[in-house]
């Protein structure tokens, strides 16, 4: 055969010889998927681990403090045995509301500008710069809130505390701007050209197209991004630990010092808490409450974006 003319051996013969001695290869082929499955299960175990540890320690906590006292009590003072979680929840809510008030208008406006007005070149420059905001460590934001935003606001509100909900909330808002801007911009960019062209062809201005065509079409994506941002704000720890204070306070006055769920966990874990004391258990009860809040938000966000994905 001519195909073997240049070689004095056959490739197929070499291959079949190698095949016979290749039991190692067969073993690898069988073991690899098992190893990979094992790795994939680690992420499942992580979730199970989280739920299990939170539940276990929380249940211990609830043998010492009743569910009713925890969820309906209005005073949080663990070192004097008062475990009403409401002040921590209102503190978390206050921070979240302030943050969304900052991030929603700015993030959404930036998204509209980038997707509807800005040229491709501007968009490709500004979007990564905005995303830098998301990459800055939260401890840096906390530092910024405490040493810059808080004194600055103190000039305006004279009875402002150094540690206060307002400056922490604003800075949490800055942190989540890129999340809203980026995800909303993605949703708006996904609106087909043809929808825009239809409206522009009828003589609509870009603003009208943005408000009446693009925004409604991208609404589910935008809402999903906001819900996700809320979840981030609820779970944010360092900014509120550094700048919002450690005063569980059932107030909606943003100039006051408050404490969030996350900030208490830090306080509880760093303070003089011994293993298996009530306070040690209480950080898990608080952590469980936090986990449920953020999980619900994440599921809601996924549900919204999946449910309305195939609009066009």
């Amino acid at each position, binding site marked *: 055969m001519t195909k073997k003319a240049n070689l004095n051996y056959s490739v197929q013969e070499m291959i079949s010889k190698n095949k016979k001695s290749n039991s190692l290869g067969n073993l*690898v*082929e069988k073991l*690899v*998927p098992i190893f*990979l*499955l094992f*790795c*994939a299960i*680690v*992420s*499942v175990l*992580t*979730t199970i*681990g*989280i739920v299990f*540890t*939170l539940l*276990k320690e929380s249940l211990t906590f609830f043998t010492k403090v009743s569910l009713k006292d925890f969820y309906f009590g209005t005073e949080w003072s663990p070192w004097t045995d008062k475990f009403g979680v409401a002040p921590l929840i209102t503190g978390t809510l206050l921070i979240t509301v302030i943050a969304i008030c900052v991030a929603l*208008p*700015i*993030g959404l*406006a*930036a998204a*509209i*500008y*980038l997707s509807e*007005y800005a040229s491709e070149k501007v968009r490709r420059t*500004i979007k990564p*710069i*905005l995303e830098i905001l998301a*990459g*800055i*460590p*939260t*401890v*840096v934001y*906390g*530092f*910024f809130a405490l*040493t810059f935003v808080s004194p600055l606001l103190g000039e305006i509100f004279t009875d402002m505390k150094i540690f206060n909900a307002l400056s922490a909330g604003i800075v949490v808002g800055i942190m989540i*701007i*890129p999340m809203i801007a980026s995800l909303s911009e993605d949703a708006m960019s996904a609106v087909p050209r043809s929808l825009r062209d239809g409206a522009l062809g009828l003589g609509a*201005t*870009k*603003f009208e197209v943005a408000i009446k065509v693009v925004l409604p079409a991208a609404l589910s994506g935008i809402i999903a991004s906001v819900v996700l941002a809320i*979840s981030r704000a609820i*779970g*944010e*720890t*360092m900014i509120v630990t*550094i700048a919002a204070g450690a005063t569980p306070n059932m107030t909606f006055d943003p100039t006051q010092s408050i404490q969030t769920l*996350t900030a208490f966990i830090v306080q509880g*874990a760093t303070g003089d808490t011994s293993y298996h004391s009530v306070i040690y258990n209480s950080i898990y009860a608080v*952590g469980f409450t936090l*986990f449920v809040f*953020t*999980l619900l*938000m*994440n599921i809601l*966000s996924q549900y919204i974006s999946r449910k309305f994905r195939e609009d066009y």
Partner: protein
Amino acid sequence: MHTNNTSKLKNRVILNKLFKLLFIFATSIALLFLGVLIYRILSQGLDYLTIDFLKNYPAPYIEEAGIFAGLMGSLFMIAITAPVAIILGVSTAIYLEEYAKQNKFTRFIQVNVQNLAGVPSIVFGLLGLTFFVYMLELGYTLIAGALTMSLLVLPVIVVAAQEAIRSVPKELRDASIGMGATKWQTIWRIVLPASIPGILTGSILALSRAIGETAPLIIVGAAAAIYTIPDSIFSKYTVMPMQIWSWTSRPQEEWQYVAAAGIIVLLIILLCMNAIAVWIRNKFQNRY
């Protein structure tokens, strides 16, 4: 009638311009925040950022305080976190993309990874405290912190690696399988090399998140001030953000400048990591 229409049109055009300005203004505010933040930190910290600051351990006196322990702690931590998280993450991604059957269990893993990415970092700290610190009796050690961090960044790496693997064209897999290559040979020799840029970019970004994290490490007991660098994985340790946090919480104003100097070091490291990630992404973009 005609003039009425014209003036209406004029109004609409003016409205359009007005809102365009408003949108630009809002975008600028976001950029302004970033500018002010960076300016503030540079103006406060640059004077304190000396060679001694990089070489010194934390000290009770401002002139002698340094970030060396934090810097080394962060590096050691990443040296453990990176291989653990990348091996687990990439393996999970390969399993989900190449081996898993389309069934409920696979979808469950997938949804689980997504949800895990949304769990607040401090909750990972609580997991680490119970599991690594107490159950495995690792205590407040480097390995406990690094493993906690591995779990924290795992979902981010899984998602990035899945995207990278998915972007390898089916034609390349077909070519390999069509020559009698086994599934694993195809993955190892074709799919993985082709998706390495995407995996690297995603992993570097995920690890840069780990370097900046503070909250979970507070919970698993990273020290705020320590005068040695870790000599084993069971050593006590601190990391840069912990150090910055401890300086920030001191009442005397001068410590803020030390904190700012520490922040500059941290940000420079993050900037370098991001620059590498972006460089890899641009260099290998659109190869197919």
